[in-house]
């Protein structure tokens, strides 16, 4: 299977006051299309930094990142923004839904960047909500939903524009075990049945078991890989 993500000699450092902190040190990694990868590691190991770089939320200090053949490390900020809109779906630990919008409003938000008609947008939103099993909660605002339901809405928002790649930062970190299992099963379904490539950061080994393989990061470098 061809690689969707190719990372070569990736480094990332931040300025913290007068100090320069290097978070990733020359990391090399390939993730094939259709993979479901769990990124694990202790706090400060660089998991979220790597996820942000893969998702195009940040730029590396050096090295290469190719996603689906595109060198996103060479993109300008505006190019990255456009690329994210059509290629990546994001799922956050705390859902990060817009509290003023209903579930369907939240899911429709990324589609406002497209040229789809209002009717077509509504149709896509309905499909995305039905995929996550929340069609009947479309008119509810986030505060009227449970944590699990909010995360499902967030996943619907992530998939509504049909991106190739889903990046998930601790998607079950704020959920109880049972709900977490439901969300992870949903992500597994999106990976297996809808062909989405998923990169997920997690601290939870049980969550990692839903992935096809787990990558362990330590001190900004790839420590080990394990297939499930």
């Amino acid at each position: 299977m061809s690689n969707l993500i190719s990372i070569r000699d990736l480094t990332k450092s931040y300025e913290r006051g007068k100090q320069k902190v290097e978070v990733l040190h020359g990391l090399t990694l390939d993730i094939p299309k259709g993979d479901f990868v769990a990124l694990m590691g202790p706090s400060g190991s660089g998991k979220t930094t790597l996820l942000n770089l893969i998702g195009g939320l940040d730029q590396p200090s050096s090295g290469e990142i190719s996603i689906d053949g595109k060198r996103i490390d060479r993109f300008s900020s505006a190019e990255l923004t456009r690329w994210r809109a059509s290629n990546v779906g994001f799922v956050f630990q705390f859902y990060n839904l817009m509290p003023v919008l209903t579930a369907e409003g939240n899911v429709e938000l990324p589609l406002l960047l497209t040229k789809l008609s209002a009717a077509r947008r509504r149709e896509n939103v309905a499909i995305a909500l039905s995929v996550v099993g929340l069609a009947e909660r479309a008119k509810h605002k986030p505060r009227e939903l449970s944590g699990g339901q909010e995360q499902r809405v967030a996943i619907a928002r992530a998939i509504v524009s049909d991106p190739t790649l889903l990046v998930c930062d601790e998607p079950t970190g704020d959920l109880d075990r049972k709900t977490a299992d439901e969300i992870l099963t949903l992500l597994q379904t999106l990976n297996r049945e809808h062909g989405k490539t998923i990169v997920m950061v997690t601290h939870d080994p049980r969550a990692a078991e839903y992935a096809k393989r787990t990558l362990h990061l330590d001190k900004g470098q790839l420590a080990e890989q394990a297939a499930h």
Partner: protein
Amino acid sequence: MTKTGFVLANLFRKKTRTILTLLSVIMAFLLFGLLQAVNVVFNAGADFVGATRLVTQARVSFTQSLPLRILPELEAVPGVDKVMYQQWFGGVIGENTQIFAFAVEPARIHAVYPEYIMPDAQWKAFADTRTGAIVGRLLANQYGWKVGDKLPLNSNIFPKKDGSKTWGFDIVGIFDGKDEQWQNQTNQVLINFDYFNEANQFGSGAAGIYVLKLANSDAAQQVADTIDAKYENSPDETKTQTEKDWSLGFVKQIGDIGLMVRWILFAVFFTLLLVVGNTMAQSMRERVPELAVLKTLGFSDGSVLGFVLAESIALCALGGLIGLSIATGLGIVIKKFAGAVMPLTVSGPVWVAGLIAIIVLSLAVGLLPALRAQRLKIVDALAGR
């Protein structure tokens, strides 16, 4: 959902806060509309267009009288149809209640002001009764006066020849206005000039102002210029203006109305800037993670700037347009009741100034939060840094 819907939903996320802010914007623009309209009225140059009556007073001040001998000269000016004159009586009733009282010649005021309505018999009685007085409907209703009553009226200016300041008049008529505007001006007492002229201690033969009814409204400017030129460099220099300008002259004596209006508006808008600016900044701070999510989803820096700025514009535009609309409505009501005394109109230029103020205010309160939102770094904002 549309982008506009999203902006409005965000604007009203904290309804109480937004409504209170909106009310402050509405009040500010209500004041803006009315005060600008006042400013326009007071700063308008002499406008003779459409004037059907002119007022001639002494050039120095309306408190200085003009001699009655100029009456035939004024009547002889081409374009003048009829002339009346009047003297401010300084009327006081009861303990110390001032009322509008003027000494007038009955036939002349009837001819020059057909807007005042009264039965012919009462006009005749006014002309024929030396101590006759007619009272406006508003005053008559207020004090319960009726035809046949005695009206003891003190003057705080003119004593009688016997030294007494208490004058006695007989109410011989009650006049009304031809329409609502003129009915609102029936709050005055008119006394017979001949009696006043003979009986007052300061001598006779002078009038405070002359009111000239014109044969043709197009000639107003020309008539005014002719009269003022005629008495230039004479002991009785005149100033001739329209009724409207003459009325406004009273209020202008308070001071520089334009300057006062500008300072009041400066204070109002400075306060508004702080209130709305603080609301917008607070609202933006509360939403840093949401703005970061918008950028994550693919909204550009410019779009995020646009969202925040649009909220500020929506808030200021909504409040501003409501405020200006209320001011326009109030202006119509005030004009209806005050008529020529205060012809307040929230006109096109006031609206244009208001719209400019809305744009300036929107940018002033929205630009900084919007720029901050635009510069937001996704990674830092999501990490709460």
